[in-house]
């Protein structure tokens, strides 16, 4: 979707604010905000691509100014509600309760399997690489152009690379396709390539900084053979 989350190349967002020292979690609620991702993932409420799409559907003004883990809260709420695990009224009522009783403790439960899952997930990850028999249509060294299509659902085809031409520098094999999996579809594995774009190709010769390139990963359906060879040499 052409959402505000797709920030590459946006002007006017001000300087990068880099504090001297910052804790990993700035508030207690951020720890739970972080834990929503692995625990609700385990419960089958979303996959990684759907989780990102949930965040992309936040109100754009809130997205730009809210603390990071509030994005994760939004995605968790979005899918828990959608799956019927919770309803909005129930969540509102509980929120009101904790606003009035912020120090009220949470229910005490134990789950050894969940703890084991957490340790295993951190250690081994959740690989997105998937086997596929589909032959690769492109190889390292090919000059390719990113298609202009603007899907309404989830995609990883950022606006700033659409229509741009670059050279494939890496071929990584086949992975889950976000444009399918992020929209609730199958894994639909596709070849992933890294494409190198020159600054001049992305921003125009006048606005581009000198001597620079951007590498961006594309799934095979995002690209077509370039019409004019050497356009991004």
């Amino acid at each position, binding site marked *: 979707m052409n959402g505000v989350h797709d920030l590459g*190349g946006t002007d006017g967002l001000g300087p990068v604010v880099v504090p001297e020292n910052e804790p990993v979690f700035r508030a207690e609620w951020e720890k*739970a905000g972080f834990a929503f991702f692995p625990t609700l993932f385990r419960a089958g409420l979303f996959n990684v691509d759907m989780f990102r799409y949930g965040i992309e559907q936040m109100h754009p003004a809130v997205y730009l100014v809210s603390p990071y883990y509030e994005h994760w809260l939004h995605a968790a709420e979005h899918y828990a509600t959608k799956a019927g695990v*919770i309803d909005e009224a129930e969540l509102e009522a509980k929120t009101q309760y904790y606003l009035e009783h912020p120090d009220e403790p*949470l229910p005490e439960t134990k*789950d050894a399997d969940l703890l084991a899952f*957490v340790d295993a997930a951190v250690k081994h990850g959740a690989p997105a690489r998937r086997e596929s028999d589909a032959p690769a249509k492109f190889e390292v060294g090919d000059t390719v152009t990113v298609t202009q299509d603007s899907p309404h659902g989830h995609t990883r085809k950022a606006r700033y690379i659409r229509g741009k031409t670059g050279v494939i520098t890496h071929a990584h094999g086949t992975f889950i396709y976000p444009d399918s999996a992020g929209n609730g579809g199958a894994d639909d594995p596709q070849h*992933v390539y890294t494409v190198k774009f020159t600054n001049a190709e992305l921003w125009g010769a006048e606005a581009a900084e000198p001597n620079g390139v951007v590498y961006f990963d594309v799934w095979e359906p995002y690209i077509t053979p370039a019409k004019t060879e050497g356009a991004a040499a």
Partner: protein
Amino acid sequence: MSATVRSQEEIAARVKALEALMIEKGIMTTEAVDRLAEIYENEVGPQLGAGVVAKAWTDPEFKARLLADGTKACAELGIGGLQGEDMVVVENTDTVHNVITCTLCSCYPWPVLGLPPNWYKEPAYRSRIVREPRTVLREDFGLDIPDSVEIRVWDSSSEMRYWVLPQRPAGTEGLDEKALAELVTRDSMIGTGVVKAP
């Protein structure tokens, strides 16, 4: 979709409410939340990436394996896992400076760097680093990269996770791996900073 901008108190209450409901449904526990926080506060952090860098500086064969397959080489040291299932390490040289970002969200190689700092996840860095990296590095990070050095920005749009092998600083010939690792900063592996002077 609501345009409500919440206070810290309001967010805290809403997170607690959702957490309580998830606990009631058997999906979450407070001990799982505590365990996850413990891992990323005390166990998984940039000290792991620093160890990999120091080994690459002192062992040319390991360095070659690291640049050829980042995931496999890190696994030799017992390093890997969530959000670093497929890692690609890119090397800084006298003529190339690398820097990583995720313009679409906040993707970052957790197994070697831990969780990302907030500025990495926020709009200002993500919007500008692909468009004016030389300016951002100079103005916001105090890192002056001469025009003669090519800046390569890696936008982590897929599950491939890029991170930077910084250059070994001069005057470190006598240092062992442990001492070298202490010079390696988180930002030097993002590409927004340099290694500490010995």
